[in-house]
């Protein structure tokens, strides 16, 4: 106890009377270490998190309803829809009908009937344009032309990756039609049924479910794909506030709707590989960040070592007048703790007050997502703990090395 008191006094006074610029420099190094630890993994995880957020916002929403495993479609879809309308927690929903078709372009200009047709296999989604807009804000993804008008027929929104011009950056991995622009005619074929559509707009997003899709009004979808039973393939739901989805799902289940379809929250419905990638990136980020910890701990070690070495005689005298070694070591641990605490506090401030809001507003543009910075408080806290403990050890070790030396040798400066 006495050692702690004396160590605290010595440590605090050494901090208080140290050169302010040196102290600031050390705190700055600790802050950078903290940021390295948090931000590197945060950006890596943020790449996936950004993609996930986009998928949630633009495609599958907070709750996703799909056909039961033993059925092809959602049963009693109209009944389902009426029930959904009764939930105040649900702000929007979209009923989607999905199928695959062949789209053909440039057929009017085709002169050589024996030549290759300009066709592509496409995914087609039948939507209520108003519902879909409320649910996923699809019009925001229209990069050329306009969004579907609910009162019109004969128009199609074509996913950008089905057009040669937009998909050329990806090589030949997608089937595309060439030279298609808003206003052009395309022919959609399913089985024996073909219908001509005018391209109303091109939709492009970092969410593949949008860019690799084509949208037509559900009335026309049912006609082209001969889907007259009104049973949909997917219903996606947006709730008032994220976090309410478990409660809404429970209500839907208790209303017996799980007899007609499979009801999943976003977290349940998202592909497992997303979680796996996030965890992998997290580990990778932690590994990279841990190199920062090693560098910081060596920095602290050197700083404390030089500090203690330059005070070796003073340490000897302190021991000479009866101050126990533990008190002297504790004084240096206090200094290391001070650097770690203030550096981390500054790092946390920069992370949560500056970087996260900044990246939320200005995401990093990656080809497959808009990357943000993710720093879960719990994970940050554990990383801080690791940094803190390692810094304490980096402070203790040099102090121990110097303080354990023979008292008289320290006083006289002998080796």
């Amino acid at each position, binding site marked *: *106890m*006495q*050692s702690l*008191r*004396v160590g605290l*006094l*010595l440590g605090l*006074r*050494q901090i*208080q*009377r*140290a050169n302010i610029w040196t102290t600031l420099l050390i705190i700055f190094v600790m802050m950078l270490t903290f940021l390295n630890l948090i931000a590197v993994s945060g950006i890596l995880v943020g790449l996936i998190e950004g993609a996930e957020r986009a998928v949630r916002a633009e495609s599958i929403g907070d709750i996703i309803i799909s056909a039961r495993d033993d059925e092809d479609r959602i049963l009693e879809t109209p009944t389902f829809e009426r029930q959904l309308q009764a939930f105040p927690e649900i702000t929007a929903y979209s009923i989607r009908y999905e199928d695959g078709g062949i789209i053909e372009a440039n057929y009017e200009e085709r002169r050589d009937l024996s030549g290759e047709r300009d066709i592509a296999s496409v995914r087609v989604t039948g939507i209520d344009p108003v519902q879909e807009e409320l649910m996923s804000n699809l019009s925001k993804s229209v990069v050329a032309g306009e969004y579907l008008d609910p009162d019109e027929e004969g128009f199609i929104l074509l996913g950008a990756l089905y057009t040669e011009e937009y998909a050329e950056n990806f090589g030949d991995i997608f089937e595309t039609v060439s030279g298609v622009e808003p206003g052009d005619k395309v022919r959609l074929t399913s089985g024996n049924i073909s219908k001509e559509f005018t391209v109303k707009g091109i939709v492009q997003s970092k969410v593949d479910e949008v860019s690799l899709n084509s949208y037509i009004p559900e009335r026309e979808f049912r006609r082209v794909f001969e889907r007259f039973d009104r049973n949909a393939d997917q219903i996606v739901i947006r709730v008032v506030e994220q976090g309410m989805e478990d409660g809404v799902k429970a209500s839907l289940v208790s209303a017996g709707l799980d007899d007609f379809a499979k009801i999943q929250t976003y977290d349940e419905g998202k592909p497992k590989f997303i979680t796996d990638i996030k965890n992998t990136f997290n580990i990778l980020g932690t590994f990279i960040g841990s190199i920062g910890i090693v560098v910081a701990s060596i920095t602290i070690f050197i700083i404390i070592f030089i500090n203690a070495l330059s005070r070796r*005689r*003073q340490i000897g*005298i*302190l*021991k*000479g*007048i*009866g*101050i*126990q*070694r533990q*008190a002297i070591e504790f004084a240096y641990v206090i200094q290391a703790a001070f650097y770690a605490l203030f550096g981390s506090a500054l790092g946390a401030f920069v992370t949560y007050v500056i970087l996260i809001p900044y990246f939320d507003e200005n995401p990093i543009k990656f080809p497959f997502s808009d990357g943000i910075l993710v720093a879960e408080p719990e994970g940050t806290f554990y990383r801080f703990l690791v940094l803190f403990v390692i810094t304490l050890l980096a402070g203790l070790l040099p102090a121990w090395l110097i303080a354990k030396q023979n*008292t*008289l040798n320290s*006083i006289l400066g002998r080796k």
Partner: protein
Amino acid sequence: MAIIEAKNIHRRFGEEPLVTHVLKGVDVSVEEGEFVAIMGKSGAGKSTLMYQLSVLDEPSEGSITINGVTVDTMSETERTEFRLNTLGYVFQDYALVPDLNAEENVLMPLLMSGVDWDESIRIAREAIDSVGLEGKYPNLPGMLSGGEQQRVAVARAIAGKPKILFADEPTANLDSVSGKQIIELITSLNRDYQQTVVMVTHEREYALGCDRIFHMEDGVIVDVEQLR
């Protein structure tokens, strides 16, 4: 009654064949309340002898009993604790902690002894007052003259009321006026409070207030001069 009893003290440094034999069988006895000086030329072994007597070093051979306690077999922690509770030190170059002010320098050993904070401050101020530095409690060592720093060092040494005060050439880094003041201070501690003092000095003038002077030469005490 002897408060320090050292018998056949040897101190060697280095390893065979390069051994330096600094103390060659020294016997010393100091009575409680006595003021003794150790004098000798440079290299005579006077400081080495003081380090043995003040439990800062361990003799290669021989036995030392201080205040009835045999210190030879103590562990490092026990020796540190013994120094804290029994001995006081004044070093050549003041040896104050530069980050602590005068008051904190003095109260640190008191805190280490388990005295509470308020009481430590009271005792520290009393000790600083007693060496003639009233009101200089918040001054950092850098704000004090050499003589004043040495006074703070004396205050630190006596604040815990040690059984024995060791002073290792306490005037070495002081001008003659400050040096005399420090010697007068140490002498008055012995005269007024019967403080046992062991002082190393190479200036006879400063040793004249002592009871006895041990004269050393080549690692042995060659003469004990009785002054009082």
